[in-house]
């Protein structure tokens, strides 16, 4: 343990004492710092705008009707294939006859939100849906609509995400033109 005999011994002992002192002073310093614990569930930490939480179905803002048109794009894009949709054809627009989402297998990857053309499926700023029975996490259409009203929605919707990824080209004469401009206005957050 000693090199150079006695001299090395004292030097090494000095180093050891110094190292011990330094390590213990770091822990002592932390003794007097405030703990970083957040007392969940008494206290909720603030979730950021883009938080990917529970999935839900939304209503259209102007008409109050269900936003989902049953196009099944989300069903096709979902990697673990947890969404199952049946379309119901209507005169003016289509609806979803049934919409099931198996939340217990969902990856929360947000791809379904990404592809939805009508911003129907969205994610909430909460993940608080723990149950003891897995069947309660097999969400049907009514449950999904109820969740949409129960929690605060996250910032990300299909149109906003797609607009963020590629700026809209100027010559785009679709009916979604105004909706897109409105979405783009919302997407441009201050000081971006």
């Amino acid at each position, binding site marked *: 343990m000693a090199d150079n005999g006695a001299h090395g011994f004292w030097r090494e002992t000095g180093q050891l004492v110094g190292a*011990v002192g330094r390590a213990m002073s770091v822990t002592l310093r*932390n*003794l007097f710092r405030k703990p970083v*614990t957040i007392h969940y569930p008494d206290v909720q930490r603030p979730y950021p705008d883009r938080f990917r939480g529970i999935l839900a179905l939304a209503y259209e803002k102007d008409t109050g009707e269900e936003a989902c048109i049953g196009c099944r794009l989300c069903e096709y894009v979902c990697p673990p294939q947890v969404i199952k949709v049946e379309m119901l054809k209507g005169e003016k627009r289509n609806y979803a006859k049934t919409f099931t989402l198996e939340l217990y297998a969902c990856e929360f990857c947000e791809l379904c939100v990404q592809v939805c053309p009508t911003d129907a499926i969205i994610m909430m700023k909460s993940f608080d849906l723990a149950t003891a029975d897995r069947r309660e996490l097999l969400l049907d259409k009514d449950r999904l609509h109820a969740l949409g009203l129960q929690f605060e929605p996250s910032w990300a919707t299909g149109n906003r995400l797609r607009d963020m990824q590629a700026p809209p080209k100027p010559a785009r004469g679709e009916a979604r033109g105004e909706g897109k401009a409105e979405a783009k206005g919302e997407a441009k957050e201050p000081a971006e």
Partner: protein
Amino acid sequence: MTLPPAAWHAVEAFIVLNVLLGLVAYVTLLERKFAARMQSRIGPYYVGRPHGWLQPVADALKLMLKEDIVPASSDRAVYNLAPLVFLVPCLLIFATIPFAPALGVADLNIGVLFFLAVSSLEIVGLFMGGWGSNNKYALLSAMRAVNQIISYDLPFIFAALVPVVLAGSMQMSAIVAAQKGLWFVAYPVIGQLAFIAFVIATLAAENRVPFDILEAESELVAGFRVEYSGMKFALIQLGEYAHMLGTSFLGALLFLGGWLGPGPAALGPLWLLLKALVIFLLVTWVRWSFVRIRVDQILAISWKLLMPATLVLLLAAGFVVATRGAGGG
């Protein structure tokens, strides 16, 4: 009281044992809270808000209600007896600790010797646990434990003997009385070095980090107690913490002046408790600051560093006493 002395001692022992068990339980809570604060978190919190006061009670209840799983291929007699053989010496050491000049179960005139001898008996229970579990991890841990504890018992004894030499008696109350003027830890050079050696040897004899190679949770999971569950595990834990507290009390008596402190003599036991807790927290502080070292390095430290150092200290203490003349303060 007109009880015969034997019955009186039995009552005293009973009281001491019960107080001790409660104290040991709450010392675990103290350690957990202290360690948590050093790690930027809060320790036990919910059970008995806001400071987790009922956590030890909850732990004790939980352990009592747990299923006692005995491995099918274990050596039954050895396996079942090991927790008891481990626990009894750890509790017996409290028999010789006086809490005040006349308060204690048995203030033997070979008190320190009895303490040191009995506390070394725990190694038997430890090895029985490791062997009886019929588990390679437990066996490896038990072999390391025998190595380590035996190697560190010698420096432990020598460091504890320095105050004995300085005071001239092995009776604990006499040692405390000899510290009326100056606590032995404040004794120039010899006192401090002996105290440091005592703390290091305590860490090793208690299997505390940085010397906890025998349990090494990340390698051997729980060491020799890996196959124990329920009440047997509780007994082993109780024994470990009781031993830890016992050596803290010993350190307080030998080095920190025992029950001596300002105020009336009735506050003596309180001072002793506080000093023991100071040593306990010091050991905890060290435990939560370091990574552990390997068993061959541990043995190297003991035989190459601590043994010669404590021998030299003991000789120096003897020299000091001899040159001071007979009696001496």
